[in-house]
Every structure is written in structure tokens, then in C-alpha cells.
């Protein structure tokens, strides 16, 4: 057995080192020494980060749902109900013939029209005189209705003011109604029979109508319907559909009854779109603030937990610290090791918390059959936030550890 030649006698000492890979290895080993304690330590961070991610995820998801309901089209639609007619004993129509034009004069109105569903006691529409009849809804509408509802044509034209004024027997078919009646094109000027009266089909609508009955049924000029079948029945009174500019709906709604029916404005009731979305938003916002505060408390508790555990570990592992110093560790090597341990705890807690938060968001979303919306940056930032918390929590214990005198530490 030969004693190896000792090194570097008389030379300046090289510095002792603590390489990154060694740091990672030593810190991980330190954490895994007491896996149970490490796991308990991260619970606070997991809960804090988890609730943060879940709150952000849920509020983003719900505001996404609100956004979907709250479309610009809904916000620009005003309906005017013929309240007096629905309470009358005989069928009445309170809207004047010139209602479209009167409403159009209001500043902010884009288009307006009156419509009602014509009531038949028996199915009354057929493609041939005396042919098999089907119960298609028949809508009596002024030309303004088609414009205000944003109707789009598949082929042909819409009912115009001339046809309305001259009470022509023309009809616009919904795409589904056209299929039911076997009408595929307008080249041969097809006719249909409603309650035995012939109507010329002048247009076929696209299948994306916002007024559902336009899709399924037949639309005829209101004036023609009035001439043939009288005013609307009391159980389906006429109403006015008004398309306004964005933001004008409320003001327009206030003016409409007076403008359309100056002699008896009380007969009409205008309804502007309420904004439940705004209300809902303010509720979720204040709830969010509360939950964020709670999550913040959980995070602080988590940080204190990490700080406490690391401090206990420093005191417990004093002999180990002394040994490491004797083996050549510098104070900063000791400090950085404990800092790395607490940071890893925080990082791990953040990672678990992010998973928990995403899972919670998904569970709630699936339960409500919503579409989950979660900013990926939030999910990525969560573990980093956890790591930062761990780093801050470890500062004081690490300082204590690095300040231990090796001779003292070895004696403990």
C-alpha cells in the first residue's frame, strides 16, 4: 500500500466548488430524505397555487360563456309588443300601416317591421290546389321585418314596399318550408296555396334565419294577410322587430311607442335587451376578488410552511452542515443548497397546484357543459410562482444555515 503523493504543497489553494449538477443532486437527496415531511410541506403551496389557477380558469371560462350569450346582435334588437291587442276580446292590430316608416324615423333605428303568426284552424298550405295540405307556420310581415332580422336569400327577392302596399299575393319561403313543399327553384314562378288562396313564391331564404318561424314557414306581406284573414288573433298578437345601431337600443326603446302610435302609446310595450351579462360579470368579479384573497392567504401559509420546514431542517441537519463545511463547502454552498431545496419544494407544489387547478376548472366546465378557457401562460406561470415562493421562503433558513460555524455545527 503506497501513500499517494500529496497535492499542491506550497501552492496557492484552488477554490472548492459546488457544481450545478451536484447542487441538484444534493438538494433532491435532502428532500427525499424525508418524503412524508416534504409532501406535507407543499400542501399549502399546492392549495394556494391550485386555487389561483382554478379561479383564473373558471373566471375566464365563465366570461367566455357570457361573451357568447352577449352578442352584438342581441344588443341591437328591440321588440315592441302589442299589449293592448293581447288583452282585447276581438282580434285587433294596433300598429298603423305606416309603422315601418314611423319607426325608421327614429335616430338609431336601422330597420323595423311588424309581424305576426297567422292562425289557421287546420293545416292550410299546399303546393297544388286541393293537394295534400301541411301545417306550415304562416308569418304575416311587413318588408322591414326581413331586413331587421337580417334575412338572407338563397334565391329570388324579398317582399318589397310596393307588394306590401298593393297587397299582392306573394310569398317568401323558408328553406325548410321550400323542401317540404317540393319547391327547388323559382324559374317556373311556382305557386303555393294558403287557405285556398294562391301565392306566387318570389324568394327562398337561407337556413340561418334568426326568427325561427321564417325558416320553417311561409312569409307573406302583412297587408295581404290583413286583407285575406283579418287582424292577428288575440293569442298571437302582432309585434314589431327593430334593429338598432349598437348602443342605441335603450334610447330607441323609450321612443318607439310614442313614435309609432302617438295616439295611444300605452298600447305598445317596447323591450330593450337587458344586460344580464353585466350584472353576472360584476357578481363573478367580486366573488373572484374574495377567492383570490383566500388563495393569497393559502399561499402565504404555504410559504410559511416551507420556511418553517426548511428552518427545522437546518437545525436538525447542523451536524451535516458542519461535515459539509469540513469537507470544503463554503458558506454560500450551504446556503444555496437549502435555498435550492426550498425552491424545489415550491416548484413541486406549484406544479401540483397547477394540475389541481386545471383539473378543477375542467371538472366544473364538464359539469356545466361549457367550453373550458384557460390562458396557457397562467398554467406555465403557476409552477414558477411556486418556485419563487419557495425561494423567498428559503432565504432566511438558508442565511441561518450558511452562518453556522463549522466547529459549532459539528458539536450539535
Amino acid at each position, binding site marked *: 500500500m503506497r501513500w499517494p503523493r500529496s497535492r499542491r504543497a506550497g501552492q496557492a489553494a484552488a477554490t472548492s466548488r459546488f457544481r450545478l449538477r451536484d447542487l441538484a443532486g444534493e438538494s433532491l437527496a435532502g428532500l427525499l430524505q424525508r418524503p412524508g415531511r416534504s409532501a406535507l410541506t407543499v400542501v399549502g403551496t399546492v392549495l394556494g397555487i391550485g386555487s389561483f389557477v382554478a379561479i383564473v380558469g373558471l373566471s375566464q371560462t365563465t366570461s367566455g360563456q357570457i361573451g357568447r350569450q352577449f352578442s352584438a346582435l342581441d344588443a341591437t334588437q328591440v321588440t315592441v309588443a302589442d299589449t293592448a291587442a293581447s288583452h282585447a276580446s276581438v282580434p285587433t292590430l294596433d300598429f298603423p300601416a305606416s309603422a315601418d316608416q314611423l319607426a325608421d324615423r327614429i335616430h338609431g333605428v336601422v330597420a323595423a317591421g311588424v309581424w305576426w303568426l297567422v292562425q289557421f284552424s287546420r293545416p292550410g298550405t299546399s303546393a297544388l290546389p286541393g293537394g295534400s295540405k301541411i301545417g306550415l307556420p304562416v308569418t304575416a310581415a311587413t318588408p322591414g321585418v326581413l331586413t331587421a332580422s337580417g334575412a338572407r336569400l338563397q334565391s329570388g327577392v324579398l317582399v318589397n314596399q310596393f307588394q306590401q302596399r298593393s297587397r299582392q299575393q306573394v310569398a317568401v319561403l323558408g328553406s325548410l318550408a321550400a323542401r317540404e313543399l317540393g319547391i327547388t327553384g323559382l324559374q317556373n314562378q311556382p305557386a303555393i296555396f294558403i287557405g285556398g288562396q294562391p301565392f306566387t313564391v318570389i324568394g327562398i331564404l337561407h337556413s340561418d334565419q334568426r326568427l325561427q318561424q321564417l325558416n320553417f314557414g311561409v312569409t307573406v306581406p302583412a297587408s295581404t294577410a290583413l286583407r285575406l284573414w283579418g287582424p292577428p288573433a288575440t293569442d298571437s298578437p302582432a309585434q314589431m322587430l327593430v334593429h338598432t345601431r349598437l348602443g342605441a337600443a335603450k334610447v330607441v326603446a323609450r321612443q318607439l311607442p310614442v313614435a309609432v302610435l302617438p295616439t295611444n302609446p300605452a298600447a305598445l310595450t317596447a323591450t330593450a335587451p337587458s344586460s344580464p351579462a353585466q350584472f353576472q360579470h360584476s357578481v363573478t368579479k367580486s366573488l373572484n376578488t374574495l377567492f383570490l384573497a383566500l388563495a393569497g392567504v393559502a399561499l402565504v401559509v404555504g410559504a410559511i410552511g416551507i420556511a418553517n420546514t426548511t428552518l427545522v431542517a437546518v437545525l436538525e441537519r447542523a451536524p451535516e452542515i458542519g*461535515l459539509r*463545511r469540513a469537507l470544503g463547502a463554503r458558506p454560500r454552498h450551504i446556503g444555496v443548497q437549502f435555498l435550492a431545496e426550498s425552491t424545489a419544494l415550491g416548484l413541486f407544489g406549484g406544479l401540483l397546484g397547477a394540475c389541481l387547478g386545471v383539473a378543477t376548472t375542467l371538472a366544473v366546465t364538464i359539469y356545466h357543459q361549457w367550453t373550458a378557457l384557460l390562458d396557457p401562460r397562467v398554467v406555465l406561470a403557476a409552477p414558477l410562482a411556486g418556485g419563487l415562493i419557495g425561494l423567498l421562503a428559503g432565504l432566511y433558513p438558508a442565511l441561518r444555515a450558511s452562518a453556522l460555524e463549522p466547529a459549532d455545527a459539528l458539536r450539535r
Partner: protein
Amino acid sequence: MSTAPLSMAPPVVRLSSVGYTYHGPPPVVALQPLSLEISRGEHVAIVGPSGSGKSTLLNLIGLLDRPTEGQVEIDGLDVGAASERERAAVRAGHIGFVFQAFHLLPHRTAIENVMLAQVYADQPRRQRYSAAMTVLAQVGLDHRAGALPSALSGGERQRVAVARALVNRPSLLLCDEPTGNLDTTTTAELTGLLAGLHQAGATLVVITHNPAVAVHAQRTIEIRDGQVQADTAAGPGGGSGALAPV
């Protein structure tokens, strides 16, 4: 810092008027100023009752503490007043420690405990395992390399600690009561191991209560009440140290 010529290697340890006083009222003198040299290849035993100051002396030689006066040189490097960075480097590269309490990390195997010393001495990672295995073989424990300290006997644990102290090829092996926690049989085993290391050329400083351990040393320094009482050469070879109480 002394730069000795190559032909005349500096002593491994040179203390010049080194003393240690605990400050704060009232000041307590733990070690009277003393001067001491330990040459390469010496086997020195430091004996004395507890509280005599021998642990203080060992801490000063091992750079675990700074003297309140005087100069400490290790391998010709003046380290008494050096920065912590330099002192850590000297501890890592020039000194190996063996403690009474072994100080093995409980959750690491024998070889992992040995390899811990290589971390701070910046040994290349690839060479660590084979170097650690070599020293474990040197102390006769290569067959227990994968065992946790709890599975090792007291004597085996202390041999792992010796292997850890040796793995960075230090100039000086400092042993603080190395047999304090061992029974008679394992004490004999360990003193045999230390004697073998000395014969192979190691410089050993051993603090001990145990006369059976001290008897193997070439030179015995007796300390009482913070003062050197005797510095005697004994056994084959004899001591070559110089002592001059101030």
C-alpha cells in the same frame, strides 16, 4: 505566504504563537499561545483530559475555527487570516477529517458518503465512483459499498469515515477521538488501519483519550488547561517536531 523551495518541503502544519480566547465577559483562554510544527509523514497523538483545549487545537489545525492570535500554515499556506473561500479550499484538498460521531449521512450508502467529499473538492464526476471504490478497498470495505450506515457496525462506519477522509488524497488526516464510540476489538482494528496508513506515508494527527491508540503514535503532545505539558517522541522513528511554548 511562504513559498518554500522545492528541495525543502514546508511542514504540513506550522503553528506560530497560536492562541484561542473566548471573548465576552469574562474572556476565557481556551488555548495558551503555542508554536508547533508537524512534518510530512508524522503520526502525532494529542492527549489530555476533556476541556484541556485539545479539541480547540484540532479545530484550529483543521481550519474549522480561526485563532484569536498567531499564524496557522497548512502545506506552507498561511490560512489563519485567509478568506473563507481559501480556507474551504484547503479543507477540501489538504485535510481529511475523522470524527468521533462518524458523521455519516444516514440515508446514503457507504460509497455515496465517501463520494460526498469529492463534490466540494471538484473531482470530475466520472472518476468519483472508481476513486471512492479504491479507498473503500483500502479500508477493506469495498464489499459493503452499497450498504446504508444503519446496516454497518460501528467499526465499519468509522472505516467508511476514514475512506471519506482519504478520498481526496489529503496531506493531513485529522482524527478527533476516532475510537470514542468503538469497542475494544474495533478500536484495535481501526488503530491498525491508521498505523497502516501512517506506514504508507500519511501524516496523522489523532486526538484521543485512549492510551491504546496513543501508543501507536511516534510523538505524543499532552495538553492540560490550554497549555502543552509535554511533547515527547516515542516508538520507532521518533518525533521530529519542535515545540516552543511562548
